[in-house]
């Protein structure tokens, strides 16, 4: 059915995604819902993990597409992509993964890992901004896409328009460099990230590292500091570039929907920072960050009525707050 007529034109069928996907996946899924498709948004576990078992439980006879990100952009949790891909192939379902956070940092093999469609982007691997790529499986199964932009037939007709040659060349070079440095860089970042998390947890009470303990990208950490508000904390450590919520949505004052989907309460979601490490992050910078964040959390707790109440033995979850 899927191959005879492109799914995008029928408006029928079932799609499986997850609640904590990036908006780049959620918004198209919501549009497809309006067009008549049925979409299941899986609830991740408390560590943000989507397993093949979860996907299996949601598969129906009319499921045509599964789209699950390889690794989450806010918490770094790595989903069971190879297993999900294998499951999809058993059921003749097309499998797409948003691998924006994954490609360039982790070894990627679309054949081994059973991926049919994979999207990723240049700027997440030190390449130019405004250029991305989609891998489209050519055989077993052959995937055909509806054209995104019609016209001169460039990019095999999927996306017409004059090619952005500097962007493409830069993206290619960035990928080459990442591939060459990947193994050493992963080890280096993991060591720095673990140091950051371990020392912050040792120096500060009520620190929670969000995401999966082990199945997590080495370059991301998302930490909740209880009784301290994330935006206020960001302002106190303004020499360090971090984000509260995800950077893409930090113009809104809502707490992160990703953290909320893990079952983290709104209060702790408001108390979270996401920090990313990269190619130019040094150990000195990690030490500086540990010192600065420790100072800022203690300073802001001195200002925090919630911390005061906590110290007086009052359980803040039992208070009747007046919501605005």
């Amino acid at each position: 059915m899927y191959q005879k007529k492109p799914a995008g034109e029928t408006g029928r069928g079932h799609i499986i995604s997850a609640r904590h996907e990036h908006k780049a996946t959620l918004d198209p899924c919501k549009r497809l819902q309006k067009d008549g498709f049925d979409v299941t948004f899986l609830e991740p576990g408390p560590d943000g993990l989507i397993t093949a078992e979860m996907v299996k439980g949601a598969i129906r006879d009319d499921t045509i597409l599964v789209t699950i990100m390889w690794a989450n952009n806010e918490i770094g949790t790595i989903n069971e992509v190879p297993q999900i891909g294998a499951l999809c192939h058993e059921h003749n379902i097309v499998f797409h993964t948003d691998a924006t956070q994954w490609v360039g940092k982790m070894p990627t093999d679309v054949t081994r890992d059973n991926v049919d469609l994979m999207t990723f982007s240049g700027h997440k691997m030190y390449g130019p901004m405004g250029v991305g790529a989609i891998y489209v499986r050519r055989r077993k199964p052959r995937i055909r896409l509806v054209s995104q932009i019609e016209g001169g037939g460039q990019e095999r007709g999927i996306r017409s328009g004059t090619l952005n040659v500097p962007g493409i060349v830069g993206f290619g070079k960035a990928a080459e460099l990442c591939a060459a440095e990947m193994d050493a860089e992963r080890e280096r970042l993991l060591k720095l990230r673990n140091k950051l998390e371990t020392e912050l947890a040792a120096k500060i009470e009520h620190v929670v590292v969000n995401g999966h303990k082990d199945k997590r990208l080495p370059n991301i950490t998302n930490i909740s500091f209880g009784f301290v508000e994330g935006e206020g904390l960001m302002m106190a450590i303004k020499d360090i570039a971090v984000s509260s919520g995800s950077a893409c949505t930090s113009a809104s004052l809502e707490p992160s929907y990703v953290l909320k989907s893990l079952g983290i309460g709104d209060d702790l979601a408001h108390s979270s920072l996401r920090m990313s490490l990269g190619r130019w992050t040094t150990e000195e910078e990690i030490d500086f960050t540990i010192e600065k964040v420790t100072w800022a959390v203690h300073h802001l707790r001195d200002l925090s009525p919630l911390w005061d109440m906590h110290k007086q033995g009052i359980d803040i979850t039992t208070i009747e707050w007046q919501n605005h």
Partner: protein
Amino acid sequence: MAYSEKLIDHYENPRNVGTFGTLEQVKTDTSVGNGVVGAPECGDVMQLQIKVDPQTGKIADAKFKTFGCGSAIASSSLATEWLKGKTVDEGLEIKNTHIVDELDLPPVKIHCSVLAEDAIRTAIADYKEKNGIAQDAEAHSH
């Protein structure tokens, strides 16, 4: 986000941080008015307390603690500064728009000034209630 120098000054050097005792102690202290507004789920909680001199009827001291963003901290810090030396009724004349003007709050942060005004009103209402002073009708209209 670009913040005004005054706002950053209040955030970096907050005035009058503290309390006049634990919440239990404050509850029975008739010279103190306590106002706690906001909610942790909304990302802002302000606690503002006034201490009134029974001789003069003026606010002798004011203290705050705030869980929130820089604008929320600065708004409540400013509120304590303005309250000192005023009578409780004069304190009720502080409006959120005054705070917005003084700190040059950006539009997305207006709610911080509203919360600060609420905290002032709640603290003053608490003081009046403890001392059997008739509440100003306007104070309830908010």
